[in-house]
């Protein structure tokens, strides 16, 4: 009897704690962008995307102490990616080995309040695929005993970073007031066209609180869009047009420069 009473007491206590934590309103994260479509025009050389966000119901005390951290990441469309490695064969450098990876984001831009390894533990970041080092890279097809996988994985990340396609800005998120923040994300000049995923994460005392996601489309506009669609949908006609354009240009030049 006594034993069951203690059990009931424990259960009640548990329920109460649950309720109180449910009553004490949780922090909420919201983000917004001024546009959900970015147009690539003829003079596009990259752009800064500004993401605004609000942190509601934050504990003032923890906020003062800087215990809230925010990470915002823009993930490009995923594409199957091949990494090749050159080796010397009979004195000539040729692509000897290659490894194919399951669709990998073509671009990845991250911005945060602190370097991410100071915001959360490795396992948390990896589990939520936050940060360049934690992008999931799964080899597909034959990989042998898998001993070469880390080497190719590392090369893929390094080359993406060198190209500016993968980048991170450890202090790109700043609070503009106690509850409003602004994140700046850099879009490189070679940003891929397609559906991008904007993800924002809130951490409190190095623990994950919540995540928000938005989509952003990167599109070509005007003449660029027209040419791209024509080349893909009417490719034979496009080829003929390209040849006619070339012949016209050649003819025009020879007429303009005609001396005799």
């Amino acid at each position: 009897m006594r034993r069951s009473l203690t059990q009931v007491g424990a259960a009640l206590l548990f329920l109460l704690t649950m309720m109180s934590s449910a009553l004490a309103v949780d922090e909420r994260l919201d983000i917004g962008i001024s546009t959900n479509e970015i147009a690539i025009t003829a003079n596009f050389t990259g752009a800064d995307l500004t993401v605004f966000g609000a942190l509601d119901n934050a504990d003032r005390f923890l906020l003062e102490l800087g215990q809230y951290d925010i990470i915002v990441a823009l993930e490009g469309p995923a594409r199957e990616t091949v990494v090749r490695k050159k080796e010397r064969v009979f004195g000539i450098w040729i692509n000897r080995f290659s490894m194919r990876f399951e669709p990998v984001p073509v671009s990845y831009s991250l911005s945060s309040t602190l370097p991410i390894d100071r915001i959360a533990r490795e396992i948390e970041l990896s589990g939520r695929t936050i940060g360049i080092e934690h992008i999931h890279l799964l080899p597909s097809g034959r990989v042998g005993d898998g001993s070469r996988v880390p080497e190719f994985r590392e090369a893929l990340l390094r080359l993406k970073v060198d190209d500016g396609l993968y980048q991170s800005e450890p202090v790109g998120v700043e609070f503009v007031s106690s509850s409003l923040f602004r994140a700046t994300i850099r879009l490189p000049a070679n940003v891929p066209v397609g559906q991008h995923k904007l993800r924002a994460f809130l951490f409190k005392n190095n623990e994950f609180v919540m995540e928000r996601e938005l989509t952003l489309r990167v599109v070509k506009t005007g003449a660029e869009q027209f040419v791209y669609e024509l080349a893909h949908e009417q490719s034979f006609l496009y080829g003929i047009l390209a040849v006619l354009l070339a012949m016209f240009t050649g003819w025009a030049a020879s007429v303009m420069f005609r001396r005799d």
Partner: protein
Amino acid sequence: MTIYLPIAEISVNVFLILGMGAAVGFLSGMFGVGGGFLITPLLIFYNIPPAVAVATGANQVVASSFSGALSHFRRGTLDIKLGGMLLAGGLVGASVGIYLFMLLRDLGQLDLIISLFYVIFLSVVGGLMLVESVNSLMRAAANKPVSLRKPGQHIWVHRLPFKMRFKRSKIYLSVIPILALGFGIGVLTSIMGVGGGFIMVPAMIYLLHVPTNVVIGTSLFQIIFVTAFTTVVQATANQSVDIFLAGLLMIAGVIGAQYGVRVGQKLRGEQLRALLALLVLAVGVRLALDLVLTPDEFYSVVVTGIGF
């Protein structure tokens, strides 16, 4: 000033592309080569994806060779009959070449084969031309006759049957070596993505003994059709022709070519050949070094089209 290329999907500097086009156009007008063997490596070096570089290069060569061929046609230095025979062989060769291209791609290592082809052909052709033209230059300096067409000197090519008279070129020659040359160039065009002028010009001079002034116009005439064919095939099969990039290269290229034709006509045949030989050799050596020297980066990343 930069411009975004819709097919290559990168932003490039307009003036750099115009400069490339003008320089290659000048050389192409001067030597009667399409310039494909120069423009394609240049574009790849400037980070244009290789597939786009090959296809767009071919498109640009259509413009510069058309412009150059028109100038030669007006000056009467174009043998349409000879060009037509070369072209007949060329189109058959190009079709066979496309089949070989697909076969090599399935076997892997297509890139390596292309590089090796470039290095071998450019070095051999450049080397032979250089030796020959330096010899003629030295003979010219010693006041000896410099004509390539030594009367009475006949090689096996001139003993073949099915002879035909080519009035413009002032030659009487069997159609077999002409068709064979056209065929060979056609195969190379598909595999290497070039017009083949840098092989065509010396082969016509040394093998067929066509006068140098007719060679250039005739070679350009042939190149127009082969590169137009390549452009349409590439656009249809791979959607890799970038009309913006090609347009920029063309505008600068055709203007450069007009000046090139003029400078070319002021130079003597053997001087022209020596310069072309040096240029061809330089590109060959540059590509050979890429194959042999230890690269800075052992890895490369290729994003294939498949995704979700």
